[in-house]
């Protein structure tokens, strides 16, 4: 990584003056330190560096009092859940996207690729055999991301908690934000869980 942090003492950089503008824009109180020390910036390293700089810039903005709420609003109103079905709750999950409940009203659209998801709805029993795949899927989802444990099995093992092959609660594997009770929960309960998550996102100011 060629970009060094800002905390490097200014005296150590005579080359920095070469990048000064001729016109000398008035920058009152600004330290005479360039943001990045440009050494050998190859193309392969440029894009990650630019990406990090950009994401740092954006991250600062989320604390901004003006822009922060806009992104918070966008996030909580556009939750894309992962399209998968574990067990019984998956049927009610599908029914929730059917004509009667239509979760798309709230901007909830299932996506098949974890890269494009914000929300993992664990809709069914999690077994130890699928546990590491579930964790992989969770890690493939980009930040910020949330998890809903839908139904008793995902919450605590449900009727299968004593079984040898069942994870007693998905919170043993990934952090869970919302638990929905029911075996299986009705589609209304699933929608309610999603709306509760929206409230949670609003309260946490994420």
């Amino acid at each position, binding site marked *: 990584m060629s970009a060094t942090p800002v905390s490097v003492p200014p005296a150590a950089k005579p080359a920095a003056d070469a990048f000064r503008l001729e016109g000398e824009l008035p920058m009152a109180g600004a330290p005479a330190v360039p943001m990045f020390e440009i050494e050998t910036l190859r193309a392969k390293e440029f894009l990650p560096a630019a990406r990090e700089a950009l994401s740092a810039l954006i991250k600062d903005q989320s604390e901004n009092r003006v822009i922060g709420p806009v992104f918070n609003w*966008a996030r909580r109103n556009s939750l894309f859940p992962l399209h998968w079905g574990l067990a019984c709750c998956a049927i009610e999950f599908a029914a929730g996207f059917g004509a009667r409940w239509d979760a798309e009203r709230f901007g909830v659209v299932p996506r098949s690729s974890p890269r*494009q998801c914000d929300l993992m709805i664990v809709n069914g029993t999690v077994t130890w055999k699928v546990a590491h795949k579930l964790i992989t899927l969770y890690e493939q989802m980009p*930040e910020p991301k949330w998890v809903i444990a839908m139904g008793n099995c995902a919450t605590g093992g449900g009727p299968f908690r004593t079984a040898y092959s069942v994870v007693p609660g998905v919170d043993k594997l990934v952090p869970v934000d919302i638990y929905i009770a029911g075996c299986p929960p009705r589609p209304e309960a699933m929608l309610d869980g999603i709306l509760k998550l929206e409230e949670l996102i609003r309260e946490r100011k994420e």
Partner: protein
Amino acid sequence: MSSATLYSVSYALAALILNVIGFIIPPIRAPITNVDVVTVLAVLIFGALLLAASMLNTILLIWWERKLLGRFMDRRGAMHVGFAGLLQNFADGFKLFRKNTFQPAEADTLGFYSGPTAYMVTSMILFGILPISSGWNSGSLPLSLLLALAIFSFAPLFIFVSAWSSNNKYSLMGGMRSAAQMIAYEVPILLAVVSVVILSGSFSLTTIVYEQQNYWFWGPLVVALIVFVAAMLAEMERIPFDLPEAEAELVEGWNTEYGGMLFAFFMLADYLRALVGSILVVLLFLGGWTLPTWVPSAATSFPLAGILWFMLKTYLVFGLFVWVRASLPRVRTDQLLRVGWNRMIPLALLSVFLAAALVTVRCVPVFGCVPSAGA
């Protein structure tokens, strides 16, 4: 009002901005208020305005598709974010803008980032070329139709680059399907367009629209219209030809590994292309911004009437695409290619023959006489 008016406005805006800057920083006032600098800035502002308009239209188009699709499916679609869900797509966009972007471990960095960007940029350039109303033909060139189709056919390259560089088997299969499909359907599109060109005698989109003053080309060239619409569906990768993104077998197709803003680029560019496709159908076959001669002139005389009718036609044509999407299953790759080579191209050739015959005979029984085409 026309594009010239809009350009004057942006020129005034550019001059104002530069003068204000010059007023604040006196030493650079003289160089930056030079007429060349102002012109460059004015062109930039003009382009930005056009771009903003096309983006807004694209987002509205996504909303239109979601609502329409919802109705076809006996449900409502997005409705809680903004009035009737109008802000839903803005929420999606803002959210994706702030998502963590990352690349898979083994992905090729350059291709992974440049593919979607180039795809997006080439789709946006198209809006500088298309005329949208009389007077609103800022980028109109003598060969604008050819240029539009040429830029339109860049897409498979960038799709394949991004699919290949994301190092995912599903992406790769999707990219290969996409390349095969788009290349196969370029030919019928061009042949269908050839018959329009023969009939109108011009490669300029503006001229083609004006040639349709007497009658719209869909009547005599109905075969070409069918071929063009079907091939456009394949070019836009929509059902029944959405094999590259066939969700059932390829997860998300060539954008499986893309998340965050890069995914938003793909989505946006897809719909930009859909908008361009609809616009091309309207321009080539449905008379562009003109209305039939029997319509009272009051309908076309108020300001911005041309744009209004044009947008209305575009959205209706896109509604047709949505209707197709709601009611047809997906075809298979070999079937798609077979239809492309065995049915579309002969039909398009037939249409070229018909158009040539029409130009020779000069008169169509029902639609009247062909204007001075090719003369």
